[in-house]
C-alpha cells in the first residue's frame, strides 16, 4: 500500500501571487455554493415535473373527452384556495429573504415563524387538494397522470416545508452562525420555485380539463 509522504510535494517552486485572507466567508445569491446546488435541485425536479406534464398531454391524445367519460371534472375550490395561500406565502418568503440579507435576526425569526405557519397550512390543504381531482390513480390513465403530477409536486412541497420548519426551529432553539443567513435566503429561493412551478401545473391539471 501507499507509504508515500502526505505532504504536498510540488513539481515546481511556488511563487505567491496573491493573498485571499481578506475575502468574505459569507456571500449571498449566485456567489454562494448552496445557491447553485439549490438551483441544480430545482432544474432536476422541475424537469421531472415537466416530463410528467408532457406525458399527461401525450395520454390526452388517447381520449376523445378529457377528463374521460364518466369521470367528473376536478374541483376548483380547494385548489384555488391553496393557490391563494401559496401566493400569500410569498410575502413572508420575500420578507425573510430580505431580513436575512440585512443580517436582521429578530425580523428573520418573526417572518420565518409566519412563513412556517403558512407552508404548514398549505401542506395540510394539499391532502384535500389531491382528492379534489375527483378521480383515483387506479381508475384510468387520466387519473394516474393527474395523481402522479400533483403527488410529485407534493413531495417537493413537503421537502421545502421540512426545510422551512427545521430552519425556523433552529433559529429559535440554538445560536446560529452568520452563514446561516445565506441558507435562509436559499430557502426562500427554493420556495419561489415550488410556488412558481405550481402555477402551470394548477392550470393544466385543475383548470385544463375544462378547456381541452
Amino acid at each position: 500500500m501507499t507509504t508515500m509522504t502526505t505532504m504536498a510535494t510540488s513539481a515546481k517552486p511556488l511563487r505567491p501571487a496573491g493573498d485571499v485572507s481578506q475575502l468574505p466567508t459569507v456571500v449571498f445569491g449566485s456567489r454562494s455554493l448552496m445557491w447553485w446546488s439549490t438551483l441544480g435541485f430545482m432544474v432536476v425536479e422541475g424537469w421531472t415535473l415537466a416530463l410528467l406534464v408532457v406525458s399527461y398531454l401525450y395520454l390526452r391524445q388517447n381520449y376523445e373527452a378529457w377528463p374521460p367519460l364518466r369521470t367528473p371534472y376536478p374541483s376548483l375550490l380547494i385548489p384555488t384556495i391553496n393557490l391563494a395561500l401559496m401566493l400569500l406565502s410569498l410575502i413572508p418568503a420575500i420578507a425573510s429573504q430580505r431580513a436575512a440579507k440585512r443580517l436582521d435576526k429578530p425580523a428573520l425569526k418573526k417572518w420565518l415563524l409566519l412563513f412556517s405557519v403558512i407552508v404548514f397550512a398549505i401542506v395540510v390543504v394539499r391532502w384535500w387538494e389531491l382528492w379534489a381531482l375527483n378521480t383515483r390513480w387506479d381508475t384510468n390513465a387520466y387519473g394516474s397522470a393527474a395523481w402522479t403530477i400533483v403527488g410529485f409536486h407534493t413531495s417537493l412541497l413537503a421537502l421545502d416545508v421540512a426545510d422551512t420548519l427545521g430552519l425556523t426551529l433552529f433559529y429559535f432553539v440554538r445560536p446560529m452562525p452568520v452563514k446561516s443567513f445565506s441558507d435562509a435566503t436559499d430557502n426562500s429561493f427554493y420556495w419561489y420555485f415550488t410556488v412558481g412551478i405550481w402555477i402551470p401545473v394548477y392550470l393544466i391539471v385543475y383548470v385544463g380539463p375544462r378547456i381541452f
Partner: protein
Amino acid sequence: MSADAGLPVELLLSEEAIAREAAALDQTWRDKPGVWGWLTAVDHKTIGKRYIITAFLMFLAGGIEAALMRTQLARPENTLLSADKYNQLFTTHGTTMMFLFAVPIMTAMGLYLVPLMVGARSIAFPRINAFGYWTYVVGVVFLYVSLFANTGPDAGWFAYPPLSTVYSPGHRMDVWAQVVTFTEIAALVAAVNIIVTVFKLRSPGMSLNRIPLFVWAQLVVAFMIIFAMPAVATGSTLMLAEDRAINTHWFNYAEGGDVLLWQHIFWFFGHPEVYIIFLPGLGFITPIIETFARRKVFGYTALVMANVTTAFFAFGLWVHHMFATPIPELGQSLFTAASMLIAIPTGVQIFCWIATLWMGRPTFRVPLLFVMGFFFTFINGGITGVMLASVGFDKQAHDTFFVVAHLHYVLLGGGIMPLFGAFYFWFPKIVGRKLSETLGKWHFWLFLIGVNVTFFPMHILGLEGMPRRVYTYMANTGWGPLNLVATIGGYVIAISVVVFLVNVIKSWVAGELAGPNPWNSSGLEWATSSPPPPYNFTYIPVTTSRHPLWDTSVELPVMTGLRSDRREVLTTTTFDARPDHRHEHPEGSIWPMYLAGTMGVVFIGSIFSPYYVLGGLGLALIGLFMWAWNSIGEHKGPDRVLAPDALAERA
C-alpha cells in the same frame, strides 16, 4: 531546481513555510482514522477511489455474466443456462454495465480528478458526494443480493411494458426499477457536484477558455445527466413502479395508457446515456495525446464546441430506437437526419486528435496505445451507428446482433479503451506508483484482439437474422460457427482483464514510484504530490494558461491566505475565475451514509409496503436534521460578510 530564469529565491515560498502550512492543513483536512473514520470519510479522493473500485467490481460482475452468456451461445441448443437464468443474466448484465459500471465509473473519475484539475482544495459538496456514493452502494448490493435470491430482473435493461409490468410476476422488475432509482440519485448528486465545482471552485485565472478538456467533458456530461436522468426517474421510479405496485394505468392501453410512452421516456434518457458514457471517455483522450505527443492539442475550441453540440444533438435522437414501432414516417426522417448529424462533431474531434499526433512526436506508452485502440474500434462503431440511423436499414438490423456489435464497439471502443488508457495514465497520481508497462502491453493487445474477435462476427450474425436476447438458437440457422468465434473472443477479453488485475495488484504493492509528475504532463493535477494530500494543494495554484505546468516554466504562481485551521476552500467567479470568497467546508460525517441507508429503506421498502416508505422518510428526516444540526455545530468562526473594497488581483 534553480531560479535562474525566474524570480529571486527570496520571493518564493520557502521550504519551511510550505512544510509548516502543509502540516497544519493535514491536521485540518485528514479524515479521522479507524473504522469510524472510514465510514465518515468525505475526502473526494477517498470517495472517488472507492467509487472507482466499486464500479470496477461491477465491470467484473457484468463481465462474468457476459462470459456465462457467451458460453451458453457457443453452440446451438446449448443447455448450460435455462431461458429463465439467461434472461436474468442478460438483464443484469445490461443493467450492471450501464447503470452500475459505466456511468458511475465515468463520474467517479470526474469526482476524483476534476477538483485536482481545476486546482481546488476539495469538491463543492463533499458530504453530498459521500451520500451519492453510499446510495450507489445500496443499489449495487440490492441488485446482487436479489440476483442470488433468484429475483434478478428478467425483462431486459430497457424494461418494455407490458412485459415488465403485467407479464413480470413477483418482484424481479421491482428490483430493476429501484436499482435504477439508486443510480439516478447517485448520478444526479455527482452531476450537481461536478457542475458547482467547475463553476465555483476553479483556480484563480482559469477562465472558461482555459478549462482542461477533460473537465469540459465532465461538465457537459454533468449537464446531460441533469436532463437525462430525470426521464428515467419519471419512467421507472414513478410510472413503472406505480403501474406495478398501485395499479396505475400509465401503460394500460385498455384504460387510456400507452406502452409507447415508456419507450419515448426511456430512450429520451437512454440515448443521451450512451454519450454520458463515452464523452468522458473522449475527455480522457486529449491529455493522453498531449502528453505522449508532447504537443498542445490542436483545435481546443473546436473540441469544446464538439462536446457541447454532441450533448445537444444527443437529446434529439431517441426515436431512432423506435423505428420499428408505428410512429409517423416524417418524424422518423427528422430523427434520421439528427442521428447522422451527430457524427460530425465526433468526426471533428477525431480529426483534431490525429492532427495533434501528426504535429507532435508520439511515444507509444500504454495510455497512448489504448487511444490508438480507440481509433481502431470506435470509428467502426461510429460508422455502423450512421448506418443504423437509416430507417430502412435499421428496420432490418434493429434488435439483432448487428446492434449488439455496434453498441459494444461504441462503448468498449469509445468508453472502455480510453478508460483503460486513463487508468494507466492517472494510476500513478492516485496510487503513487506506476503500472507495469510490459503487462500493460499484454493487456492492451489481448483486449484489442478480444474485442474485435468477439464483436466483429456479431455484425454478420445480425445480418444473417440472429435476433438479440435469445437464450439459444437452432442448429439449422447456421449461426453456430460465428457464435463460437465470438465466444472465444470473449474469453480473450476475460484473460486481458485478468492481466490488468494482476498488473494493478503488483504495481500497487511494488510498482515504480511515480513522483508528482511522472509523465511530465501539463494539468494542475500533476502540480501536487502523488497521491495527493487530503487538502490537494498546499497553496491554491493560479492558472495563467491552458497548460499551467508547461507554460509557467520555472515557478508555479499560487494564492496564499486561506485559513489552515478550518477546511476552507477558495471560490472564484463563474466566468473569469476571479477570487470571490472563502467557503468553509464540512468535516467528515456519518450522516451521509445514514441517509443513504434510509433511501434504501424507502425505495426497497416501496416494493413491499407503503409503510416502509413512510418509516424510511421519517428516518431520513431525522438524518437531515442531525446533518444540518451538526454542520452548524462544527462551524469555526469568525465569519466575514463583506469584502474589502480592493482586493488587488495580482494573479
